């Protein structure tokens, strides 16, 4: 985390761009910009700015946005719920659809079912998220008028509205993850299904479903859990395109907007939060291996 903090700060220091120029507006003069830079402390030496930032960080303060004057923690707080909601819904849809598809494809390997699942998977990888998003909006929002086009409704304002706003973005974003998880499940299941203990279970006369779910899937779960874990980390890191197309106020858009405006405190805060999230998610995934495979011990 400390390395991340230093590298991010250094990169932003070296990156061209001046928030004072953006803040001042198109009609500002060089003199206006110089005076704003002074007020913001942007001319201070690197070690001073980094030291001040570290000091504030040590006190739980991620700083204040240069443009909105709002605390970075507040800005992240506003965006975390839509991002976590989108992540949750996307993963629920992805896992519920992809794992059964992968299991069925493996169980019927080489048949038309397997080929159909793989075709769906290739399609899921190939369709750009924004194309699918526009098709979904046109079909379900404009033509059928079933779901809203854009925006986010916080869960405290009603679960139904919350879910209605997340259905289309989750499907659009989940398609890629369905493809990824389905392929990974199929591959892991094929590997496990070739093992001796599966043949033994079948020879003992266990029902095919019990062999597939109880014996094969549980043992294939480690790589699947790894992929899902990476997926969570990527989703929290920002599903920029999905958030932009559906006007979801998530962390991804916050990050991109901050980069475009050179709002350094937000960029630093968000990157630090990402790195913390990655560490925690990886830890959780590693710990989950013990549940799926009792032979794994740390």
């Amino acid at each position, binding site marked *: 985390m400390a390395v991340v903090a230093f590298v991010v700060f250094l990169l932003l220091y070296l990156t*061209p*761009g*001046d928030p004072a*120029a*953006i*803040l*001042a*507006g*198109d*009609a*500002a*003069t*060089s*003199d*206006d*910009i110089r*005076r*704003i830079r*002074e*007020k913001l402390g942007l001319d201070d030496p690197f070690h001073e700015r980094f030291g001040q930032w570290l000091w504030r960080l040590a006190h739980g303060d991620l700083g204040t*946005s*240069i*443009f*909105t*004057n*709002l605390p970075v923690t507040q*800005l992240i707080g*506003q*965006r975390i719920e839509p991002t976590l909601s989108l992540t949750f819904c996307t993963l629920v849809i992805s896992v519920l659809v992809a794992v059964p598809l992968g299991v069925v494809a493996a169980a019927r390997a080489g048949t038309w079912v397997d080929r159909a699942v793989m075709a769906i998977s290739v399609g899921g990888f190939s369709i750009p998220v924004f194309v699918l998003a*526009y098709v979904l*909006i*046109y079909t379900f*929002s*404009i033509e059928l*008028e079933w779901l*809203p*086009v*854009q*925006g*986010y409704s916080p869960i*405290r*304002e*009603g*679960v*139904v*509205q919350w879910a209605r706003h997340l259905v289309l973005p989750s499907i659009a974003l989940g398609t890629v993850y369905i493809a990824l998880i389905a392929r990974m499940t199929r591959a892991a299941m094929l590997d496990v299904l070739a093992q001796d203990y599966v043949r033994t279970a079948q020879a003992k006369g266990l029902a095919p479903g019990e062999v597939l779910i109880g014996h094969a899937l549980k043992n294939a779960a480690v790589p699947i859990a790894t992929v899902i874990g990476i997926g969570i980390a990527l989703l929290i890191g920002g599903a920029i395109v999905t958030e*932009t*197309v*559906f*006007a979801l*106020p998530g962390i991804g*858009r*916050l990050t991109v*907007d901050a980069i*475009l*405006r*050179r709002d350094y405190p937000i960029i630093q805060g968000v990157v630090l939060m990402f790195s913390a999230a990655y560490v925690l998610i990886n830890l959780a995934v590693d710990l989950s291996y013990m549940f799926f495979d009792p032979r794994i011990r740390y």
Partner: protein
Amino acid sequence: MTRRLRWFAAAAVAAAIAGPWAGSALAQQKVLKFIPQADLRILDPIATTAYITRNHGYMVYDTLFAIDDKFQVKPQMVGKHEVSKDGLTYTFTLRDGLKFHDGAPVKSADCIASIDRWSKRDALGQKLAEATESWTAVDDKTFRLKLKKPFPLALDALAKPSSNVPFIMPERIAKTDPFKNIDDPTGSGPFKMVKAEWVPGNKVVYVKNNDYVPRKEPPSWASGGKVAKVDRVEWIYIPDSATAAAAMNAGEADIWEQVPPDLIPLLAKNKQITVKNNDPLGSMGMIRFNFLHPPFNNEKMRQALFYAVNQQDYVIGIAGDPKNGKPCYSYFTCGTPLSSEVSAEPLKGKRDLDKAKQLVKESGYKGEKVVIIDATDQPIVHSQSLLTLENLKKIGVNAEIQAGDWGTLITRRAVKEPIDKGGWNIFHTWLVGPDMVNPAVNFPIRGTGEKAWFGWPTDAKMEELREAWFNAKDAAESKKAADAVQKRAFEFVPIIPTGQFILPTAFRSNISGLIIAPINLLWNVEKK
């Protein structure tokens, strides 16, 4: 679980799912959903010239004076005012009942502090400050401006319609350093910002200011009665234009401030939506040169480009449809009193590439590389950059585009070094009509060298002519002086105007009362 308990549990879950809004007061309110041109990031209309912040300013603040659709100055917060016979003393009295959103009455001290802060940032405000001897509060509602020398534009300055607008803030806020960005949106305007609901990058919420006392006159631009006819206004920022169009089609938004040209036909198909030009002045595109380095430190090089630029191409490039723009061969916004085609011959008529090439040759151009800095995330900038590149190549100039985003462009244009050290030769931008109506606000024509806008031209003659315009005693003199400024601009070429364009507004059929003005103003707007 007993049957009764199960019913109770089911009812509790249903209530949770329905959410607290069902049947709530908000559902009864008239909520206007507005898609703004940009995301509101900065709340301080003095610290920035960003148009979105100016528009926010009009929601929450009021002004002492305002311009109407006939370019006349009208009192707004001021109830009555007197000017001494020598033109050196102005006495203003505020209207009755003016209150800030925190309940405090608007006092003379608030007005004086607000004008003082504004005049430290705004060019016209600085000009007024130069002529000012003092501002004094006579009593809570009356204050006086004493001038050192006559300044006929004093009221025009206080009525300035575009950035920076002299909005009136409470004294406690207006005392803030003008180079420091304020974050308290307390004003006395017709709407109050609900800061707790502000999600930058997504939503800004305003509610009707029930304490606001509108003027009796009908609204005309930013003057007249500012009657809020909806309870709540939500600015919903939708970064993707296709999604914004879909939101309009689905009825999730009522007004879309600026529709990109390529989406106008899509919206026009919907009978529930009207796409209309509400902006009588539009915007003006421009090519800006760097005067510090070759080759555009040479007047003939700048003049050469006049003969290659076809404004119609630029208008189509920016606005898509010729109906949404027109050539404007003037340094002052076409359709306003000072616009004219005086000395505009190099820019109008049949384009003359031979003449352009001859001027390039006469300038002594030696094939130096010319760098156009471009912002591909700004279609208006990008389309102009591509056209200028083509024009320069046509006349034998070794030009290239260096593309980035808007943030990079406006940082890089502040670099005064030559191009091999990160400098530049040309950039493009645009200004809204009100920002180019006269020599006072038209900052790109200024020739104050290091203190001038990016490009830093030095042109003492232009400054003299501008000063003469300020001293004009009547409309005829003013027009004559403005023509002289324009004549000089066509010689010196501080910028090349690339045409006048509009980005129309879309609104649904249940919306009425939109004010035709160069700024989207949301008072008087009704939603059925």
